[in-house]
């Protein structure tokens, strides 16, 4: 490793860091400006203030959106991963006609445009009383959380060596014991990674949240931010949006800081096998 190499890589890495993190830095600076200087176009605030943060937590719209977002994303993630674990285990371990079809269908559904089912859902949800409710979002979230979980989990399950189950059976364990004592502990990291990835997807949704909710009863963060009112009729909500954006980005940064290796493994596991 020559000094020139080291210098070259440091510079390259620095460029990557600046490109990926600068927009976050800009949002943070914007959120710390005072309402009077929010429009001054300066990168670094002329005077610092936490007024925007105080504002969003006092309004109530944002806090209820946070609760809705976390609750709805968590519930749909847990249901999806539970159902997907069964299917993915079967796809990775058992031989039965139609398993390629299930996997292909899952992959196709992940990629399908959510706006295509907004019309029917909007129509049905109003009749069924599901419009602007938690289940009204959790159900459509299954369209992407479930196939994504099946796809990622089956890639992880395939990597668990089959010999371990066979060895357990030879040692006299029943298939159920083999599953609980041998497979489950080995599958846990993959399941955990899948939960993170699926949660990020559900947490990100805007199309369903924006079209199938109307009030703070079920509105999630992306929809609430998009509809933020200004502090008064004549002020723009720029500062509140920036502060809310920073608040919801912090957990994501913490997640990727702690689980970087797992997330990278989860995203690449399925892709390698095509």
């Amino acid at each position: 490793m020559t000094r020139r190499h080291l210098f070259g890589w440091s510079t390259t890495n620095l460029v990557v860091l600046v490109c990926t993190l600068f927009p976050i830095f800009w949002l943070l600076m914007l959120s710390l400006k005072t309402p009077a200087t929010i429009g001054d176009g300066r990168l670094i605030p002329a005077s610092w203030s936490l007024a925007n943060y105080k504002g969003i937590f006092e309004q109530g719209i944002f806090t209820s959106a946070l609760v809705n977002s976390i609750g709805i994303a968590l519930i749909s993630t847990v249901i999806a991963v539970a159902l997907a674990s069964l299917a993915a285990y079967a796809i990775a371990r058992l031989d039965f006609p139609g398993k390629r079809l299930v996997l292909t269908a899952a992959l196709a559904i992940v990629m399908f445009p959510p706006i295509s089912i907004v019309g029917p859902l909007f129509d049905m949800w109003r009749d069924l009383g599901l419009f602007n409710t938690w289940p009204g979002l959790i159900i459509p979230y299954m369209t992407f959380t479930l196939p994504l979980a099946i796809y990622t989990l089956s890639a992880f399950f395939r990597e668990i060596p089959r010999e371990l189950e066979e060895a357990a059976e030879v040692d006299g364990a029943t298939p159920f014991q083999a599953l609980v004592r041998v497979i489950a502990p080995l599958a846990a990291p993959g399941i955990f990674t899948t939960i993170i990835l699926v949660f990020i997807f559900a947490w990100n949704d805007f199309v369903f949240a924006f079209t199938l909710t109307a009030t703070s009863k079920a509105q999630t963060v992306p929809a609430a931010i998009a509809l933020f009112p200004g502090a008064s009729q004549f002020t723009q909500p720029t500062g509140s949006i920036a502060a809310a954006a920073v608040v919801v980005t912090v957990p994501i940064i913490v997640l990727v800081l702690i689980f970087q290796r797992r997330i990278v493994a989860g995203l690449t596991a399925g892709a390698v096998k095509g």
Partner: protein
Amino acid sequence: MAHALPRLRGRDRTTLSGRVREERRLGWMLCAPAVLVMLAVTAYPIGYAVYLSLLRADLRFPQDNTWVGLSNYVTVLSAGTWWRDVWHTLIITGASVTIELVLGMLLALVMHRTIIGRNLVRTSALVPYGIITVVAAFAWRFAWSTAEGGFVPKIFGWSFDPTATTEPFWNYVVVILTEVWKTTPFMALLLMAGLTLVPEELHEAAKVDGATAWQRFWRITIPLIKPAILVAVLFRTLDAFRIFDSVYIISAGNNPNLETVSVLDYNELLTRLNLGVGSAISVLIFLCVVLIAFFFVKGLGTSLAQQRGEA
């Protein structure tokens, strides 16, 4: 066990051993809940959308629904708006996926090869991936908007507002940059997955033969990771074609110069409350995505077959 299956099939297709039948039944049983839920939440609404697209249906007068056959499709396809918005969507998709492929390849090489701070680089690349798209769109809109105190127009001394101008070029610049920033890391991770499969010995051998880094990249790396490139481009193309969040936020929902097919559909369904025509647009968007996927999968199949043939 599974490896006994081909032999059994060869001998007799009709009588399966109890073990194999047991395995099939268990497989179907374990898949059934997930498959049923997927059918209920996607196949059923899509079917319902097809049905609605054949009706004259206005959400304000639900009792007046009448069967109109394909006339909603005629309305959509004969109006200029649909084709204009398809064009807008294709511009955004084409430009962002092309830029992302180049930048994503660079980022993948950096993440794969860097000798220092590998974890730091990978972690920072995951930040745009994990961030909410709406948040990303606001970050870029605020940075470029003169009215909302952006620093970009100030630095360049622009008197116009790139996000509000009627000059479409600048609207597209902001949207495409947002897309590129948000999704290049995803592209890079898929490409990196391909890079890890390229044997280091091939590079060493080529080096001994005097190949430059550039030659090795084009002659060894690219051909070997072609399937990974196609998968990454397919995923991103389909994802870009359904673009809604960033366009809606950056154009504040009502800039006709920047209207994509998803935004058009949203406006038809939820602003004009025209469920019939809106559903026809929904079905058309769905068909476009199926068409794009079909061509890619065909291309991917040929490239995989070629690779196997060469090996």
